[in-house]
């Protein structure tokens, strides 16, 4: 068994195992296994040992180091870590070290987590296989010839192979859930605005959300509870209240309208006041009670999936029925337009977000005769082909005379989707479907066909466009022995019911064998193996 975050932190807090010894074992495991896996871009050995030492000292002093005490965490390399390279797997940021940490990184560390390294990804989170990394491709822990999915492939592979207990990724169109499904772990995208984006290097601002990976739904809920909450440095972050009796989430007093004169404090390393955790680390919501819940199996993200995948979704649905839920098939025909709308909105926002990489203030600079040529050369040589493709798509979509037909129209589609989801959620508590159309595909299989690659996200994109939470839960394997993920979708702020249903599915899921590349027991016994071809 791979270690769970709950177990690790419990043992560290009780003083039974030191955070330092756990950290050292994980650093050794990364050292030995990651040579095959390539999940990490930067291993933060010194930083991790320093934090572990701090945790151990707190335990010795009788202080509570927090709900993630001593838990090894991997962080996607598009989340800023102060003083540690944050590359977005791009040459353009190859040597950039941010002078500040993302809000989620600060929250994790204050909860006692030990960040062991930064994980590989598709460049600027654009891709579905982690093959678009400017540095190297990450392998699927279940099969070295297959991709781990993407764009958060490094984080998914690290958790699947036990090189970190939990991890953070970012999900713009499925970049957490799709690799989670392909690597056989749990991955979750929160409601838009539940988790601060401050320090997340932007891809598509209106779609990006940070979220956790773990081996269990409980671990994912635990990490989510730590990273969620209003952040005054992110104007799109929500102020959410949790009802103590029902556990339900509601908007407190709307979104932040504006900051205050003199209160905005974005100076290096500072930390604004923060909310208490959205819910306590004791998860009453994890009891699996789903009797009477109304579940819709969403046709548009299920019926076109590979037969093995579709069968697993049907089994999951049957399991929910046996646990007392009502299940029926539902259809949202408007989802037909989701992929098209996404590939206008995301590139449009990206074309603007990535303009700042101009060689002037930070990152790569390729010198030239004049400023304009310098900018042009820097961007030509610093960005990879997929990034350039999306910048061009987005620039075109926003151009004078085309805005209304492309970006404007895509936003109207988005509004229609939100309404269509709302109509379905009037009669259903959650929706169920496939996370991916198929299980892990082969390395190099789709790199020559961008559209085929884009279609890997067809099941996950709708939740991003709607701003809704969704989670992928492993549910057995396909005929080739590759992990299958089923997805639970919920309306905005529907995390509590989403976790409840996900935990129920997890309890009913066929057992998933650990991958061949795996540091299988973080608590002491090192039982890792290789892919078996050495």
């Amino acid at each position, binding site marked *: 068994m791979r270690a769970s975050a709950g177990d690790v932190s419990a043992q560290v807090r009780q003083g039974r195992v030191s955070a330092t010894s756990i950290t050292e074992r994980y650093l050794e495991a990364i050292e030995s296994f990651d040579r095959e896996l390539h999940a990490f871009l930067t291993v933060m050995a010194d930083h991790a040992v320093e934090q572990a030492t701090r945790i151990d000292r707190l335990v010795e002093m009788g202080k509570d180091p927090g709900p993630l005490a001593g838990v090894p965490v991997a962080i996607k390399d598009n989340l800023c870590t102060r003083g540690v390279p944050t590359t977005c797997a791009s040459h353009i940021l190859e040597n950039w070290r941010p002078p500040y940490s993302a809000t989620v990184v600060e929250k994790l560390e204050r909860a006692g987590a030990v960040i062991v390294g930064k994980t590989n990804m598709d460049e600027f989170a654009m891709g579905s296989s982690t093959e678009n990394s400017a540095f190297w491709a990450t392998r699927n822990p279940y099969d070295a010839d297959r991709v781990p999915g993407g764009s958060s492939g490094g984080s998914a592979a690290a958790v699947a192979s036990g090189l970190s207990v939990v991890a953070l990724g970012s999900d713009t169109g499925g970049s957490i859930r799709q690799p989670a499904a392909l690597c056989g772990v749990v991955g979750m995208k929160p409601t838009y605005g539940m988790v601060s984006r401050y320090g997340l290097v932007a891809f598509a601002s209106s779609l990006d959300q940070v979220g956790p990976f773990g081996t269990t739904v409980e671990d994912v809920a635990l990490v989510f509870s730590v990273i969620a909450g209003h952040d005054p440095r992110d104007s799109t972050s929500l102020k959410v209240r949790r009802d103590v009796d029902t556990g339900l989430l509601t908007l407190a007093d709307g979104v932040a309208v504006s900051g205050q004169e003199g209160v905005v*404090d974005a*100076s290096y390393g500072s930390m604004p006041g923060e909310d208490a955790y959205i819910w306590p680390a004791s998860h009453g919501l994890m009891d699996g009670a789903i009797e009477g819940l109304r579940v819709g199996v969403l046709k548009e993200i299920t019926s076109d999936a590979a037969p093995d995948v579709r069968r697993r979704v049907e089994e999951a649905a049957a399991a929910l029925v046996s646990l007392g839920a009502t299940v029926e098939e539902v259809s949202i025909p408007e989802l037909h337009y989701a992929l098209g709308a996404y590939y206008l909105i995301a590139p449009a926002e990206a*074309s603007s977000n990535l303009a700042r990489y101009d060689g002037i203030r930070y990152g790569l600079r390729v010198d030239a005769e004049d400023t304009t040529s310098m900018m042009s050369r820097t961007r030509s040589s610093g960005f990879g082909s997929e990034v350039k493709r999306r910048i061009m798509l987005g620039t075109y979509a926003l151009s004078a005379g085309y805005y209304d037909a492309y970006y404007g129209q895509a936003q109207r589609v988005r509004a229609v989707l939100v309404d269509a989801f709302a109509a379905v959620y009037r009669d259903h508590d959650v929706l169920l479907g496939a996370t991916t159309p198929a299980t892990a595909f082969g390395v190099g299989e789709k790199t020559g066909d961008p559209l085929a690659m884009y279609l890997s996200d067809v099941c996950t994109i709708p939740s991003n466009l709607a701003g809704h939470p969704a989670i992928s839960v492993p549910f057995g394997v396909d005929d080739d022995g590759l992990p299958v993920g089923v997805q639970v979708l919920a309306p905005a702020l529907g995390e509590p019911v989403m976790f409840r249903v996900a935990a129920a599915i997890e309890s009913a899921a066929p057992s998933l064998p650990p991958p061949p590349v795996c540091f299988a027991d973080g608590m002491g016994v090192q039982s890792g193996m290789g892919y078996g071809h050495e």
Partner: protein
Amino acid sequence: MSDLAGYRGYEPVIGLEVHCELDTVTKMFCGCPNSFGDAPNTNICPVCLALPGSLPVVNEMAVEFAARIGLALHCEVRPSIFHRKNYFYPDMPKDYQISQYDEPINVNGWLELPASGVRIGIERAHMEEDTGKTTHVGGGGRIHDSSFSLVDYNRAGVPLVEIVSRPDIRSSEQARQYVSELRMLLVSIGASKARMEEGSLRVDANVSVRPTGSGVLGTRCEIKNLNSLRSLVRAIEYEIERQVDLVSTGQVVVQQTRHWDEAGGRTIALRSKEEAHDYRYFPEPDLVRLDFDSDRVARIAGALPPTPEQRRARIISLFDAPTGTDLVATIVEMGLDVLVISAIEHGVVPERALSRTANEAAARVEDALNLDPGLYARLLMMEQEGKLTPTQTKAVLQAMMDSGGEPESIASTMGFEAMDSEVVADLVSGIVDANPDEWQRYRDGEGKLAQFFVGQVMKATRGKASGKEVIAALDRLKAGAK
């Protein structure tokens, strides 16, 4: 300067875009100081440097200042959103500017020109952020030209409001008045320092010409780099003549952005419409809608400091008879109206309050602005009550502007003791007795001899007596002697 009919049968149509930096403590979207003249790149942070992962948060005070500007310009203040204006420029850290596009905070207002009462329409006044400043450094004496540029990002992210007028301006003089009045208004309501010389107020002019009386708009040119009111007037005059030259000889005006060359006294084409940027505006996804309910607007309106228009009206309302509006306008422009109003409210005759302020105080306006209006009023009352002569009053006022203090104690220190009118009368009586010939001639109607007696009394009192008191005493003696 030409009047309306003076451009060979053509009339100019002018619209102005005025950018003003808001006088907030911090920048538009981060907590860095909004401060002019500091060492380069000292007021910067991840947000205003556009480091990856940083996000903007709207400065509430900037929004309030923007709303004040809207209210003072009689605009509709309403909920608004921010857009991104995308273009690459080295001194713009994000390579897009956060601005407002089709849903700005203020729309549909007007500004009245003080002299003529002409109202210039305001199309919009929207919020945006300033850019940094680039300094180009010349060649360095190597084989290749080693010139380079330095960028200072202290100004990047400083809050701006852009005030766009309707094309209602018909002369360079009106344009001057518009900017002058707008500048005063911005200072008056505390929204901006509005200093053209520091760049906290910047003006672009859109100029076109058409046959006088025509209802059709001609092709316009936008003129940039107008750094003073003088440049504004000269550039507009030049541009009108240039365009009239073209159209009156059958040529066409090309829509262009033009640069005012101060030294050359001419405008030079920068880029044509075809070369214009495509800014690819789209709603800023990192910010949310700025809700502006009527309560908030009412609260800001209630606390709005008076506009220059209101301040002029206030002074004029204190006069019983019509007064010199030019003088009032000057006083308000200098910010000395508080002195005038305080003096009148303390009982000083309005004409005296205005003239003392317009002469002695206005001559040292920076010092006069530091005067305590209450003390100033007391000084003028001392003069009005005859406790100080005009000469003494001026001397005390200079002392107050030099180093402050209360007028009574300054007068006392200077030896300007108030002379009792009985003492003056006794003195006058003595001098009359000592100069019987002059007295007789004065009684016979030789009025100019009054100055002789005043001079004698002044000599005897070393200037402490009031001339008016002396003449009053003479008159009483004359009446009694009949």
